[in-house]
């Protein structure tokens, strides 16, 4: 066996490591330090005072926002995964190779359009005089208030996560060993049962990672809750912008930020552990 540490191995492993330590670990460590700084007369000064932590954690508003954000992100991850799976499944198994290439190409297109523009576009659909209400009006229904609701926020989260989740699910489905599925069918395993007992377990890693990405994107997003949800209920990301704006309270914003990071780390490690459970490598 060849030596592990050589010029060759370091050439590939070190650049990203150095970059992420310098520009990812250090900024986050600095954020921790920042959370202990104090603000007097709108001026920040280095300090070691837990006052920011006790202030933020003592507020009911903070815990409400925390619960809301967690629930919304979990709902978005579940909803996106459930809605994306039939599409990914159909693209993987029901389309010809050429059609599948087109499907993948089309699903990549949203990545080349601005998320902000798409959110603005949803406002055109969902507003009180928007496209959907005009169409419903022709049918003698409505108008319904859709903009500035939790449902609209969810539409925004779907816009953000759906294409990525479909692609990740698709890539894990494409590489399932087809002989497994044929074997199941030969053993007279029904269609739906094959999906739940062969396809989904085989693709588990990709499916869980896809759901995780949806959760992460929704958890930290501040565009959908503000511009589609109308800023109500308050999420942690909105809390950060508000806290930052209110008179240089960056240390308090850092407390919210660090709490979010801690939560995400727990969720991510849990999900990855579950995704790779029982695999040798």
């Amino acid at each position, binding site marked *: 066996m060849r030596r592990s540490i050589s010029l060759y191995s370091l*050439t590939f492993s070190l650049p990203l490591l150095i970059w992420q330590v310098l520009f990812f670990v250090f900024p986050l460590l600095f954020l921790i330090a920042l959370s202990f700084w104090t603000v007097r007369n709108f001026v920040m000064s280095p300090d070691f005072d837990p006052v920011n932590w006790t202030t933020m954690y003592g507020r009911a508003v903070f815990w409400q926002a925390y619960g809301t954000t967690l629930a919304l992100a979990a709902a978005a991850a579940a909803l996106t995964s459930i809605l994306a799976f039939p599409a990914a499944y159909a693209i993987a198994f029901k389309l010809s190779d050429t059609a599948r290439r087109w499907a993948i190409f089309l699903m990549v297109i949203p990545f080349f*359009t601005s*998320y902000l523009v798409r959110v603005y576009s949803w406002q055109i659909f969902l507003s009180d005089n928007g496209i959907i209400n005009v169409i419903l009006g022709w049918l003698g229904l409505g108008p319904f208030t859709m903009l500035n609701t939790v449902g609209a926020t969810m539409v925004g989260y779907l816009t953000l996560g759906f294409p990525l989740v479909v692609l990740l699910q698709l890539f894990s489905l494409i590489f399932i060993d087809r002989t497994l599925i044929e074997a199941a069918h030969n053993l007279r395993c029904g269609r739906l049962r094959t999906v739940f007992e062969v396809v989904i377990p085989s693709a588990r890693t990709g499916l869980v990672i896809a759901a995780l990405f949806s959760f992460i994107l929704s958890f930290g*997003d501040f565009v959908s809750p503000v511009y589609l949800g109308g800023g109500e209920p308050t999420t942690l990301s909105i809390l950060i912008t508000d806290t930052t704006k209110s008179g240089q309270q960056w240390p308090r914003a850092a407390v919210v930020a660090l709490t979010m990071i801690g939560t995400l780390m727990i969720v991510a490690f849990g999900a990855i552990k579950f995704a790779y459970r029982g695999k040798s490598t």
Partner: protein
Amino acid sequence: MSGAADMNRNRAVNWALLAYIFLAYAFVFAPIAASFVFSFNSDRFPSIPLGEFTLDWYRAVATDPLVWDGARNTLVVGVVVGIISTVMGFGAAYTDYRYRFAGKQVYLALALLPPTIPVIILGLAMLAYLSRINLSGNALSVIISHVVVCAPFAMAIVRLRLSQMDPALEPAAWNLGASEWMAMRHVIVPFCAPAIFGALFITMAVSFDEFAVAWFVSGLNETLPVKVLGFLQGQVSPRINAIGTFVFILSMTLVILAQLLLSGRSAKTADKE
């Protein structure tokens, strides 16, 4: 793969699934199509029925020098970020594929975690940190921050491809006398080529679309998405649609050009052989 007959074929289910694909794409493309249509529509507050055809919003955007600055910044940042992220992401993916070492968990965590940190937090941390070391407020700071976010995507894409490779392939090349570098050049890189280009496009796209971190650290060198965020925060106007459509057509042209170049080159090598 096309001949794989499956016993449980059912026409109704197949049609339902195809209809579902159509619905999924309708959902994804509805906002994109609407933004395109309403960028030519005269109404200040867009809805149906449509108003008159107009190019006013494009004119308003084209005469705004700040928009042009933003476009140039976005493009430069995106290309540089895409290249750096893909190269480093490939290295990390290969490291994970090939080596076992103490602290590998930590290495992987560092390589993959940044996208799990919400951009709004990263923006705050980056601004605070980069201004401490006098790097904030310019395009370089946007590049630095974007690579942090984009490299993990590149790594994930390449790693997925490597996991499909027969693990005996590389040792086979060594046994046949190839050096590690030659095996890399002739076995690993060709096998990963689709993933490498995929990673390049995806990371560039992520950078093009990223506005929150850029908004925090860019200072006066605003990228185009930051400019759009400004429009969204101020008075809402269909100018957003015009910018969106313009950027969309530009990036799609680039993607299709790249596709054509790639397939053209592989066709040529196939001819030679």
